[in-house]
């Protein structure tokens, strides 16, 4: 009895925390199927009395959420694909290819991690305006095509590639591009998955910069559109919950499938600090 009690307390506390963490998400799902106005009653209903898809219909037909989800998907996919190529190449070069000034350039890059993105946000907006990229996918994608964090992550991982392996390939006459494509990339596969999911989620969830650069409704990503919708429809809880569901489902699904890679990346990225 006295030995069982601590185990019961610890697992009970963990279960309690899990309920706190997940309940808001489950309730969101439940309310999104409720009849109009049903959520604005007391006591708060847990389950819909007569489940309906009306909120989702309104969301897609009247609020144009389909377009915004498509915008988010395009922006996040483009950002992920291109930045992956750029960050992988740069991270590998910083880890394995020797040239004068390499360490100094890398240190300068790391210095950028200290500067909050918002410092340069207003000039960046003016640059985007000048390039004609405001209110276009490019406005969000182009500045995110490479990231110091991504390069750092790849470099950390690529350092474990043995130099002998690369030397042997060079002696066999393989060019640097071939070595990268056929020897290095396969070895980097785990970090590719990690970085891909990190980038995709960060891009999908990003809010402040898309809010600034995508003023035109047609181009807005899902979070920006949802924020605008929530400021208009303060009272319409069922519609807002449906909006949250469609915004969250892609990221949560991706996380649940690839969570091991995500958490590994988080740990790898924060070891140095």
């Amino acid at each position, binding site marked *: 009895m006295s030995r069982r009690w601590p*185990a019961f307390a*610890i*697992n009970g506390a*963990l*279960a309690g*925390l899990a309920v706190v*963490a*997940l309940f*808001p*998400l489950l309730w969101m799902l439940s309310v999104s199927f409720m009849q109009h106005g049903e*959520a604005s009653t007391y*006591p*708060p209903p847990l389950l819909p009395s007569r489940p309906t898809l009306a909120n989702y219909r309104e969301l897609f037909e009247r609020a144009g959420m389909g377009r915004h989800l498509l915008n988010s998907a395009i922006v996040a996919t483009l950002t992920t694909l291109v930045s992956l190529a*750029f960050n992988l*190449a*740069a991270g*590998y*070069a910083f880890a394995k*290819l*020797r*040239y004068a000034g*390499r360490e100094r350039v890398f240190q300068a890059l790391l210095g950028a991690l200290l*500067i*909050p*993105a918002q*410092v*340069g*946000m*207003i*000039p960046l907006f*003016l640059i985007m305006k000048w390039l004609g990229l405001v209110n276009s996918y490019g406005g969000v994608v*182009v*500045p995110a*095509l*490479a*990231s*110091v964090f991504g*390069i750092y992550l790849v470099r950390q991982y690529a350092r474990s590639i043995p130099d002998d392996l690369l030397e042997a390939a060079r002696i066999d006459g393989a060019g*640097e*591009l071939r070595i990268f494509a056929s020897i290095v990339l396969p070895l980097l596969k785990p970090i590719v998955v990690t970085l891909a999911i990190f980038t995709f*989620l960060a891009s999908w969830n990003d*809010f402040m910069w898309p809010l600034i650069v995508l003023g035109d409704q047609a181009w807005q990503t899902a*979070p920006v559109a*949802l*924020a605008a919708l*929530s*400021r208009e429809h303060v009272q319409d*809880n069922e519609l807002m*919950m449906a909006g*949250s569901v469609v*915004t*969250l489902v892609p*990221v949560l699904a991706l*996380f*649940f499938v690839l969570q091991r890679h995500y*958490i590994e990346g*988080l*740990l790898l990225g*924060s070891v140095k*600090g």
Partner: protein
Amino acid sequence: MNERRAAWLFTLPALVVIGLFFFVPVLAAFVLSLTDFDLYALADLGNLRFVGLGNYIDVLRAPLFWKSLGNTLYFVGVGVPLSIAASLGAALLLDSRLARWKGVFRTALFAPVVTTVVAVAVIWRYLLHTRYGLINYLLAKAGIAPIDWLGDPHWSMPAIILFAVWKNFGYNMVILLAALQAVPAELREAARIDGANALQQFRHVTLPLLRPALLLVAIITVAGYFQLFAEPYVMTRGDPLQSTVSVLYYMYEEGFEWWSLGRATAIAFLLFALILVVTRVLVRIGKRGGYA
């Protein structure tokens, strides 16, 4: 192609992107903060004037800047310790030998971290609703009168802090859990044999070894919490009585509602300076404590 040429070829695309879209804007921001860049300058650069430190002086004289600074410091000062305490508590529970289904629990507790701030802020606005919200319903069960969470200036910031702790504690939990798992079991075992109880083992064995991880977590969280923006944007619009206007929210309004871009950039620089100073102080404290 030799190694040096290849290295430049491989790094060039990333360096160009980061240079053009990060370093250039940051440098330009400093120049911009010394000008009166506004809607007129946006239409015709001929209207641009150099104003020296004028923007900084204006901002430091604006009551709303000090209000926003106070709000942000409140959020950081209360929110960061609470978040880290929650993370540490959860990490300790997960690290326990007695805990079961660790993987499942870890995933569940981490899930809020990967969610979109805007979407979960919308959920929490509903949970915190004065009349229909679940939180007031639970409080009523405990005999506590309903709280106007997002409408009362005394409760608006605590409500946002509560939300932020829920959203973020899983992140630091994972880092602290990894640090806990690196604590050698023999050390705690030795302390136990020497007669230390669970609390003493934690204070004298685990906590000192956790110091570097705690410092790292504190710095990441402080820097992140100073950048409070989406939460008040969605949940309160900075209200009631500007009690949730953060420094970044103030910057956003100055820049993109009023188009005082020079002034907004000055606000961004002041925030940056503040973050640098506070994180430096944290590093100092962390290092000094380490030798004590």
